């Protein structure tokens, strides 16, 4: 059964053995290995285990899909890893063109999407972990679904994999996967309750890159002090990317509402003194120098030397690399996508990809899941812009409200675990930008009340927004003041001003709560031919997709397109 590729499995086996021999409770495995310690036997064992893991994982995934529990990628990974903890290193070492890691707080999915588009235009077979499953189990699942029962990857010949990885998973993945390129895009404050503070993540990454072999090329954002610092002590090759267009400086743009933008890294990572910015593009990204120890932005290898914004979702950038200079149009909304594109270009350069696939890969890019994707519904267009942390949200608002156009909005705030249970961050978002710029505004989500309160304090009058919570407050029901009975009372006063009158098209019996109702309300208020901008947090995006799927509007996101 095991015919070829001897080296990776042996390497994987060595790791297993070391780990397995640690706890005294399982002495049998190393002893038996030592007894018949011939190489072929070991290889066979690991291939058998890998094969078992592949079968088990895929069976679990099929089962989960059959029961409609979800895409089944995560469960596939969980089961496979349980059956063979080193399944990820076992499979990933078989990829002919190796693996690329993409991480950062914001823009992981878009960046890895850009890289995937570039690489497949360059003729490679690109494998990615699925949207949203960027934990170890998702990565394991992505590999396992492409593996054969003998523990080998199918068609691994032209293959390269791109792993979009959660910030906290980086230390684990660098141990398991031999990386050709590691892209670190940015580090913002995100889900303090889950990841800890920004400094904690930065120091974990610092430790993680020490494990990397020198052959791994780091692709780092020169404009983010915490990211650029990772390259300072790295012995291998580093490719920096950044923006070199002074006209984008916030000070030049003179937008007053950007002044109190949240800044997540303000002090020098080396000495703790305050950083001085000669240019700042957004949040803490810019050209910085520490006046105390001299720690400064490294010169970028891949640079955006000029940026012009043609339309809401058309940005023309001129990119200069050591070997090339040319124009590229980024077909996505949002300034942050300039960084995502630069990161992808730098990664492609590190992989020695030609210029043509770089241009075509980016220019023909289709927005990913929740990153500006477009859905047509009943003569209206929905644009979905995920916003999961203050910086991301501020950038979405900047994208939507910088042209002075009035927008139809549906904003959705959830506090499920994947969103982060803490919603305090909404007070750091510049919702003040929205005041008098919304044509209609609908607010929903598990923390709709918190969001409505934030908007109220931003200066949006209660009658200018429709608050649609996910469920009625049960305490008000108990106070014997049901609104349905039409009696004036407490419920009336709560809902009267905030909850919109039932739009005519909505069936009478339907309860005026929840996402589906909120979506109907928002669409109802958006005239035919116009665009409704939906800004959800992460689980809100998932719910929205389920709702749109239910209405037959988007493909199942876990269905991979193409090879």
């Amino acid at each position, binding site marked *: 059964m095991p015919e070829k590729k001897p080296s990776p499995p042996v390497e994987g086996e060595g790791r297993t053995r070391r780990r397995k021999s640690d706890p005294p409770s399982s002495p049998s495995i190393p002893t038996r290995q030592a007894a018949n310690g011939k190489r072929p036997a070991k290889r066979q064992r690991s291939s058998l285990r890998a094969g078992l893991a592949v079968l088990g994982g895929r069976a679990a995934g099929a089962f989960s899909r059959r029961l409609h529990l979800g895409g089944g990628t995560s469960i596939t990974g969980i089961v496979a890893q349980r059956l063979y903890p080193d399944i990820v290193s076992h499979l990933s070492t078989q990829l002919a063109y190796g693996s690329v890691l993409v991480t950062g707080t914001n823009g992981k999915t878009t960046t890895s999407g850009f890289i995937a588009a570039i690489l497949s235009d360059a003729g490679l077979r690109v494998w990615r972990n699925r949207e949203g499953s960027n934990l170890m189990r998702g990565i394991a699942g992505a590999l396992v679904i492409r593996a054969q029962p003998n523990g080998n990857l199918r068609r691994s010949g032209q293959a390269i994999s791109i792993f979009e990885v959660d910030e906290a998973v980086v230390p684990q993945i660098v141990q398991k996967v031999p990386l050709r390129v590691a892209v670190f895009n940015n580090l913002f*404050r995100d889900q*303090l*309750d889950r990841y800890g*503070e*920004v*400094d904690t993540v930065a120091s974990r990454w610092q430790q993680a890159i020490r494990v990397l072999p020198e052959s791994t090329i780091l692709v780092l954002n020169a404009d983010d002090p915490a990211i650029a610092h990772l390259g300072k002590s790295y012995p291998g090759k580093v490719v920096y990317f950044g923006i070199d267009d002074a006209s984008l400086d916030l000070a030049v743009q003179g937008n007053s509402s950007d002044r*109190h933008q*949240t800044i997540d890294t*303000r*002090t020098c990572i080396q000495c*703790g003194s305050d950083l001085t910015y000669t240019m700042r593009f957004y949040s803490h990204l810019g050209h910085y120098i520490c006046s105390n120890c001299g720690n400064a932005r490294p010169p970028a290898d891949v640079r955006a030397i000029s940026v012009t914004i043609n339309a809401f979702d058309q940005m023309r950038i001129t990119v200069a690399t050591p070997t090339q200079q040319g124009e590229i149009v980024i077909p996505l909304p949002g300034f942050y996508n300039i960084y995502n594109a630069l990161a992808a270009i730098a990664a492609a350069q590190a992989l020695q990809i030609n210029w043509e696939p770089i241009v075509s890969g980016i220019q023909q890019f289709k927005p990913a899941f929740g990153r500006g994707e477009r859905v047509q519904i009943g003569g209206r267009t929905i644009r979905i812009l995920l916003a999961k942390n203050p910086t991301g949200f501020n950038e979405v608002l900047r994208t939507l409200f910088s042209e002075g156009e009035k927008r139809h909005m549906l904003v959705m705030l959830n506090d499920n675990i994947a969103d982060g*249970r*803490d*919603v*305090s*961050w*909404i*007070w*750091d978002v510049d919702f003040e930008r929205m005041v008098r710029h919304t044509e209609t505004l609908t607010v929903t989500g598990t923390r709709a*009340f*918190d969001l*409505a*309160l*934030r908007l*109220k*304090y931003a200066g949006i009058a*209660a009658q200018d927004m429709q*608050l649609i*919570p996910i469920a009625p*407050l*049960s*305490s*008000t029901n*108990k*106070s014997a003041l049901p*609104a349905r009975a*039409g009696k*004036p009372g*407490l419920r*009336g*006063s*709560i809902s*009267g*001003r*905030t909850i919109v*009158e*039932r739009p005519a098209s909505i069936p009478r019996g339907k309860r005026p709560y929840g996402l589906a109702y909120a979506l109907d309300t928002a669409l109802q208020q958006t005239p035919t031919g116009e665009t409704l901008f939906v800004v959800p947090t992460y689980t809100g995006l998932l719910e929205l997709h389920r709702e749109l799927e239910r209405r037959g509007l988007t493909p199942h996101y876990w269905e991979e397109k193409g090879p």
Partner: protein
Amino acid sequence: MNDNSKPQFTLTLGHLYPDQLNLYGDRGNILTLQRRCQLRGIGLRVVSLGIGDALAPDEYDLLFIGGGQDKEQAPVAQDLYEMKGIGLWAAVEDDMPVLAVCGGYQLLAHYYRPASGADMRGLGIFDAWTIHKGIHVPRCIGDIAIAWNGSTLVGFENHGGRTYLGTAKPLGKVLKGHGNNAEDRTEGAVYRHAYGTYLHGSLLPKNPHFADYLLALALQRSYQLNDSEIMEIFSRNPLLEDRVESGTWKRVERKNGASTVVSGTLTAPPALDDTLEWTAHASMLERLGLHHAAGAALRHL
């Protein structure tokens, strides 16, 4: 009709270390105080007190200090002790209302002992101390509700350090959540009119009664007003008084889809409509399973 362009009462809020201690949406607390003052015709000036600035107690009517990351907290602790310590002590002893959230709360107690490294010295305004028991001890994270002053306060807590009270009184009793140390069900600390708490989220927007309580303390202290005078200031509506002729007012109310014009004479309706605030407060209590308290909160309306 009095001259509305120049407020009769003005308050100055000293915001300590807005650039360093701004981690958990502290802006919400400042915005809440500003808005509640503005709508009642009270002038509120917010003055930032950064590193190196001295604190002259006479210049302020109330103080706010938030929380930050550990790295940012260390230089702040030193500056707080050296530059602002005496002024802050004098202010607190003179009954100035002070709100300290999270890291700021820890800095107003005796000391903060990190998981590793030297103790961070605090001001000792609260007879309390904080110990971080190591990175493997789970942080206190989650929604929290406490009983305060016959009512409830709701927020979100996220702290690694455990705070233990000496003689300091707690701000309230934990109904759901961790509180100071996840052991004794106390939350926060009170000394004179200084309030320390782990509740953010932001604290004041969803707890309008606590925001008003702090403002009332400030007005009482700075203008020697009694309770009924403060009640009168809090319930008036300068915007409406200005616009409505001959003591009558009109308002369109929408109930169950029908619009009715409500009118009245003599007194204008209060400037602040806290419906949304209390609904948000109650919805937090419900999420914590505190349905009785949620019902009580809605009776504020």
